[in-house]
């Protein structure tokens, strides 16, 4: 097991190196000048200011030494400084990531619970109207453009009906608690501030639903087809021949087996979710990594892009590692030594 995790961690390093290298190469292929993008009109005309800027960001060195410098910094955990925000990228990530993490976890919970529930119902009532409705719903989930869906949902629930609050993480009049984890649900709970907790939860519902809809669709489809497949397995026949009730078979034998591939899909779904953040955060004014990534990408703020990419690649590997470990726990056939 440790060996396995070790191997994965080595792969993680390789992956992170690759991601960083890729962004670095990309950043130097792009015909844009961070100097021009970040200095004011008049400041641009003052060579002294430009030189100071270049020196500050290491832009005056050769490409190779920039590269070396960059990786030296990476090794010490320094992701560089964002050109756009002017702050250390690490600090930016620390600030924006909790918002994204909270949103994506809630979205994932919604997706998992509903997805598995729907998938199971759909498989049990195969080819019945319920099945058709759920299948259509889950296919809708994977085919609706999230940005549009977010827009429509926001307009309907927030403006027209008015049952959910507008965008953002909390009510504009409340302020975020100082310090803490940045996960507002947790923070408010820890502080015992239930009013804030409610506020935060209410703000989470709509974006989390929109965001989780895609993954919900994925999971529901996968659960359905797995369950159907499992139900035709020999060991289900064995279970029947033991005299088990059909419900007992589904709960005791079928679901657990059919959920194994769902774990993988859920992992993919979670990574997808992080990727899809960009669009949803944009609509819901969510101060998270997605917004940060978007703004960094369009302004070609490569230290920030690299930081975000490294973070997400890191999460990707961690999620995959977790999935593998989970496999090992659930499926006795898989054993990592």
């Amino acid at each position, binding site marked *: 097991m440790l060996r396995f995790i070790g191997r994965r961690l080595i792969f993680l390093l390789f992956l992170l190196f690759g991601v960083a290298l890729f962004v670095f190469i990309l950043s130097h292929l792009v015909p*844009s000048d961070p100097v*021009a*993008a970040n*200095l*004011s*009109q*008049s*400041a*641009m*005309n*003052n060579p002294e*200011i430009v030189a*100071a800027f270049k020196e500050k960001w290491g832009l005056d060195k050769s490409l190779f030494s920039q590269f070396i410098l960059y990786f030296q910094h990476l090794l010490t955990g320094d992701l560089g400084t964002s050109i*756009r*925000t*002017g702050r250390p990228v690490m600090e930016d990530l620390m*600030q*924006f990531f909790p918002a994204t993490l909270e949103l994506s976890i*809630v979205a994932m*919970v*919604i997706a*998992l*619970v509903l997805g598995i529930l729907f998938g199971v119902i759909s498989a049990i009532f195969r080819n019945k109207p319920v099945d058709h409705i759920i299948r259509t719903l889950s296919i809708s989930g994977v085919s609706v453009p999230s940005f549009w869906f977010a827009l429509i949902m926001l307009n309907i629930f*927030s*403006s027209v009906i*008015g049952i959910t*609050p*507008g*965008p*953002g993480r909390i*009510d*504009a*009049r*409340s*302020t*975020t608690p*100082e310090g803490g984890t940045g996960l507002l649900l947790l923070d408010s709970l820890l502080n015992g501030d*239930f*009013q804030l*907790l*409610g*506020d935060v*939860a*209410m703000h*989470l*519902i709509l974006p989390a639903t929109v965001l989780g809809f895609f993954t919900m669709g994925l999971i529901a489809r996968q659960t359905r087809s797995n369950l159907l497949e499992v139900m035709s397995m020999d060991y289900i026949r064995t279970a029947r021949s033991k005299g088990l009730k059909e419900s007992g078979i589904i709960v*005791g034998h079928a*679901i*657990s087996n059919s*959920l194994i591939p769902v774990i993988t899909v859920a992992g993919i779904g979670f990574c997808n979710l992080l990727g899809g953040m960009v669009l949803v955060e*944009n609509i819901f*004014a969510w*101060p998270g990594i997605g*917004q*940060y990534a978007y703004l960094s990408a*369009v*302004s*070609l703020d490569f230290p920030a892009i690299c930081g975000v990419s490294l973070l997400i690649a890191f999460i990707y590997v961690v999620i995959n590692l977790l999935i593998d470990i989970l496999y090992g*726990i*659930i499926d006795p056939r898989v054993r990592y030594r």
Partner: protein
Amino acid sequence: MKKIILLAITLLVSLSLIACSEKEESGQTTSSSSSSNGSQDTIVIGVASDWKTLDPARAYEVFGNFYFYATYENLYMLEGSELIPKPALAKEYSVDESGLVYTFKLVEGRKFASGNPITANDVVFSFNRTMNIKDNASALAEGVEKVEAPDENTVVVTLKEQDASFLSKLTSNAFAVVDSQVVKEQGGTDAEDASTTDTATAYLDGTSAGSGPYVLTKWTQNTEMVLEKNPNYPGTVNASKIIIKEIPDPNTQIQALEKGEIDVALSVGPDQVKTIKEGGNAKVVSSPTSTISFLLMNNSPEIGKEMSDPLVQQAVRYALDYEGFKQLAGDGALLPMSFVQDGFVGAQSRADNYQNIEKAKELMKEAGFENGFTVPLIAANYDSEGLSWVTIAEKVKEDLSKININVEIQTGDVGVVIEDYRNGKTPFLVMHWSPDYYDLSNQLAFIPGDIVGTRANWDPSANPELVALAEQAKVEIDEAKRAELSGKMQEIIAENSPYAFLVQHPKSFAVSANLEGVAYNDLFKLSLKDLKLSK
């Protein structure tokens, strides 16, 4: 299998938690909204700011002075909607006959928020720090030769050359006066090597060190800012607390405003404010700004190709539908004759019906382009007071198609687009000009050989008359004479230049119906101390 059941239970619990909190909610939204109505003392402002740093010696953002005017004071500042500098920390100034040495007398007995007295040394420290830190803001202080404090209440600034706009420049954050004692304690320095040794920015990003009506208590970039009343500020300050919320999406700002979550929806555009229901709990405020959008047509034949032909340039000016641009820019849009905005000395305006397609076609024919040509038009994904440059470009494309010019729009991030622009490599682009300080001198950038002129490859040799006029205007202190010079230049540029000035944008935003004291100023947006919520 127990693990799976455990997992399922955890999921269920968390789900029910959410459900519960949802219930809690419904009882709560009402209470929170009622409490928000009750707190007359706190004003919430929704913005989409561009703050990168709150260090006055570094910041150079559109929203910079919105914050700095609330937390710092300068020697001279703007007030209300006007663009004329008024004394603030200084009570008066005098200029020597050379026009280079300015002597300021400070108001006595003023204190910083920290309680430290404001002395001339603080001013000297602040100015030197800005000059030596060599960041964005330093550009405005370029013209300063030296700053001295002969006594506690006197500051003497010596300029390198005459500058009629110096007082205007003084009103921006580059010359905000910081509490030197505090800043030094936090690692600040005004020494020559400040660009590498100064470490006070981190502190200033979290706490203000000025004497303005408010003090900064919290800033989370791209999220929120909390300002609280400065007890040491002598003037009237209405709201005891100001919360500034980052809400990037204009629709969201409008929504939040209509729901009473915020009191000001500042970063919205003309199309959004139109959706505000009349008679509701929100009202629209419109005010002119000094932002002017224009088309740049490169004068260099290699780069501008057909666009470098003065006849074509003139044809473009005739072909544009100025009425349409005014409509797009929203109520209160103005049409300046050329490069000097309304509100600046000697500003003139252009007739609404300036468009003349026939004349434009004739000019095209004269230039030999009767059958037109294709030209790329570069437009950044950016907007001027809520009007997207891309929309402007689309409108330009439509208008120019009438004189057979086929425009191909190329969009890009503003940072990317601006680089080519600054290097003078764009043949044809949509740009805007928003002054760094509110003086004619700032506009002289459009003169051949100056900043914008160079970018259009418009050499001084092309129009020596204009260059001469500009030189005069820069140093002319007499207002009337300056106005005359300004008018002359405007007329020349209106007829013969690589620019087409489209529209001077209004600022449209919305505030809650019971908010008073709303006056928009292009430099610092809103004077926060004047804002007041009535019953």
